[in-house]
C-alpha cells in the first residue's frame, strides 16, 4: 500500500488546517460508509481551484492568480513572437490551454504534495503536513531538468557557490516572487520586479582584490555577472518536436543578450525549431524574428572561474563565444545578431 496518501493521525491535532474536516477541502461525501460512496465528488487536488485556499489565505491567493507559477504565461510569451495573429489564436486554443498550461503550479504543489513530473509521483511532502517550503521536494522537481541539478552540481560537476554555502531556492527567490504581486505579467519572467539580482547582496566597489575591482569596473554594463561567474556547462535542449523529440546536452555559450544586444552574457539554446508546432497546424510565419539562443542565468555560480582567473580566455582564446560556424543549422536568422567577438587587450 502506498503510504504517502495516508494522513498521519499524530498530525491532526498539530496543524490548524485539520481543525476543518477532510471534506472542507476535498469535498466528497463525509457521511458515506463505503469507499465508493465517501469518495463520490472527491476533489483530489483542491488547491487547483484557488477558491479553496482563498477562504483563509486571500492575501496570498489574490496576487498568486497573476503569478507565472499559476498562469504559465511565461511559456506563451516565450514563443508567441514567432506567430502571426491567426497562428497565435490557434496556439492559444490548441497548444497553450491543452499542453503548456498543464504545467501550472498551485498552492498544494509546493506546500502539500510534490508535483508529478514525467509520471513520477513522489507523494506527499511530509505526510500531508502543510509545509512552508521544502525546495528539494518541490522546486527541484519542476525545475529539475535545468536549474536544480546545475545548482547542486549534479549536472556539470560543480555546485553553485550559494548551494555550497547552504542556500537553497527561497533564500534568493523570495515568497513575493513565487506568489506574484497582483500585477499581471504580460512579457514573461524577466518582467517580474521581485526577481533576485546579484547586486542585492554583492555590491561592486567592495571587492577585496585589485584584480576584482578592475575586472568589475572594466566590464560594468558590458557583461552580465554570469558571463564570468558561471562555473561550468549547463543544459541546453535542442530540436523539440523535430521528428525525434527533444535532446539535451551540456553547453556553455557566450554572446550578446537578445534583449538588449549590447551586453555579453551566457546564452542557452531553446528547443523551438521550425516544425515544433507543425502537428497543431502552426507554421510559425515569424520564426526568424526571435533567436534560438536566449540569455540565461546558469545556477552554477562560482567566485572563481577560468574567465575570472585569466583575461586571455576571452580576449585571446575567445573561448565559448558564439561564432558563425557554431550557429545552429537551419536556425533562426536572428541568431547571427548575437555573435560577439571580444577584442584583444591593449598592452
Amino acid at each position, binding site marked *: 500500500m502506498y503510504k504517502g496518501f495516508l494522513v498521519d493521525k499524530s498530525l491532526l491535532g498539530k496543524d490548524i488546517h485539520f481543525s476543518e474536516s477532510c471534506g472542507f477541502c476535498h469535498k466528497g461525501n463525509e457521511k458515506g460508509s463505503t469507499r465508493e460512496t465517501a469518495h463520490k465528488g472527491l476533489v483530489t487536488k483542491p488547491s487547483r481551484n484557488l477558491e479553496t485556499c482563498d477562504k483563509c489565505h486571500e492575501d496570498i491567493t489574490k496576487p498568486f492568480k497573476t503569478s507565472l507559477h499559476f498562469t504559465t504565461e511565461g511559456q506563451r510569451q516565450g514563443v508567441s513572437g514567432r506567430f502571426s495573429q491567426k497562428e497565435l489564436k490557434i496556439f492559444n486554443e490548441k497548444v497553450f490551454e491543452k499542453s503548456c498550461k498543464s504545467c501550472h503550479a498551485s498552492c498544494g504543489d509546493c506546500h502539500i504534495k510534490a508535483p508529478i513530473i514525467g509520471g513520477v509521483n513522489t507523494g506527499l511532502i511530509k505526510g500531508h503536513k502543510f509545509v512552508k517550503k*521544502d*525546495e*528539494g521536494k518541490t522546486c527541484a522537481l519542476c525545475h529539475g531538468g535545468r536549474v536544480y541539478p546545475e545548482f*547542486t*552540481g549534479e549536472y*556539470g*560537476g*560543480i*555546485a553553485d557557490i550559494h*548551494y*555550497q*554555502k*547552504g*542556500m*537553497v531556492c527561497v533564500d534568493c527567490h523570495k515568497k513575493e516572487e513565487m506568489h506574484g504581486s497582483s500585477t499581471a505579467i504580460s512579457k514573461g519572467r524577466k518582467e517580474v520586479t521581485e526577481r533576485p539580482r546579484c547586486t542585492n547582496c554583492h555590491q561592486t566597489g567592495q571587492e577585496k582584490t585589485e584584480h576584482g575591482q578592475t575586472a568589475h569596473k572594466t566590464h560594468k554594463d558590458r557583461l552580465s555577472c554570469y558571463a564570468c561567474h558561471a562555473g*561550468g556547462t549547463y543544459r541546453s535542449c535542442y530540436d523539440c518536436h523535430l521528428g525525434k523529440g527533444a535532446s539535451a546536452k551540456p553547453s556553455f555559450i557566450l554572446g550578446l543578450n537578445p534583449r538588449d544586444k549590447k551586453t555579453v552574457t551566457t546564452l542557452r539554446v531553446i528547443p523551438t525549431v521550425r516544425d515544433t508546432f507543425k502537428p497543431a497546424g502552426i507554421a510559425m510565419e515569424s520564426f526568424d524574428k526571435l533567436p534560438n539562443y536566449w540569455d540565461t542565468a546558469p545556477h552554477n555560480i*562560482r*567566485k*572563481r572561474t577560468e574567465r575570472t582567473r585569466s583575461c586571455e580566455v576571452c580576449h585571446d582564446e575567445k573561448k565559448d563565444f558564439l561564432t558563425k560556424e557554431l550557429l545552429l543549422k537551419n536556425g533562426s536568422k536572428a541568431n547571427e545578431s548575437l555573435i560577439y567577438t571580444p577584442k584583444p587587450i591593449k598592452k
Partner: protein
Amino acid sequence: MRKIKVSLFVLFICILFLPLASLARDVEPIVNTTWLEQNLNNPKVIIVDIRKVEEYKAGHIPNAVNIFYGSWAIMKGGLRNELPANDDLFDVIGSAGIGPDSIVVLVGKTDAIPDRTDITRVAWTLKYAGIPNIAILDGGYNKWMADKKPVSTDAPKPKATAFQTKPNENLFVKKDYVIKSMGKATIVDVREPDFYKGVKKLDFVAKTGRIPKAINLPTSQSYKPDGTFKDKAELMSAVSGAVGTDMTKEIITYCDTGKVCTGWSFLMTELLGYKNVKVYDGSSEEWTKDPQAPWEQ
C-alpha cells in the same frame, strides 16, 4: 607451517605497535557516537556534515556545520571526484572555521559504499591540506540516528578563518607517476572482484580490466553491514594479507574515480600505521582513456 608462524608473529608485533600510529594525533581516526556526543561542545571539535544541504536542513548533529561533498570534490577536465583548485579548497576549509589545530569530525551518510567513501575522500582531502586531526564518525549520521542521539535543525554560523597552507601534493599522484612506479610500488585496486577481474565496468570507464600486477583489496571488506568499520585487527589482517607488513613500502591505491580508494588509504595511514600510501586520483576513468597506459584484461 613455519611461514605461517612467522607471518602471525609479524602481524602480532604490528598490532602491538598500532597505538603508536595514533599517538601523533589528538583524536582517534575513527570516533564513535558516544565520543562525539561527549565532545559536542568541545571548542576544538568542528563537526563537518558532508551530506546534501537539503538532508542537513532536515536534521543534523547539534553544532555540525554543513559543507556538502560537492564542495570537496568536483568534476574537472572530464574526470569525476577531482580536487578543487587550492584557493577554492582553502576557502571551503576556512569557511567551516577549520584551522591547523582543529579536531575535524566528518559525518556523512553510510547507506552504500559511495556514500561511505564520500567521507573518506573528504578526510583524505583534509590530510592533503595539512590538517592533522581528522576523524570519521563511525557509521556516520545513520549510526547517530540509530543510537537515538540528539538532532538539531539550527544551523550554526561558523567563524570563518583565512586558511592557507602548503598542501601535501604527494598524497594524490598522477598517471605518469603511477606508470613510473609500476614494478616498484604496490598498486592496489580497491574495486569489487568482478571489476578487478574484468567482468564488469562502469559506463564512464572505457575498458574492463585492471592495471597490470595490481592487487585486489575491495573497499567493501573494510565495513560491517551497518556501515561501521570492522575492528582494527580484522582490518589489519585484510591489509597485511594483501600488501604485506612493510609499513614503509610505497602503496598506490586506485578505483574508478579516485574516491572509493580513499577508504583503504585513510585506514592504512591513519589507523594501521602505513607510512607511504598514495591515491591515484584519475583512477580507471583517466587510465583507460589513454591507449598507451598499460592495462590487462
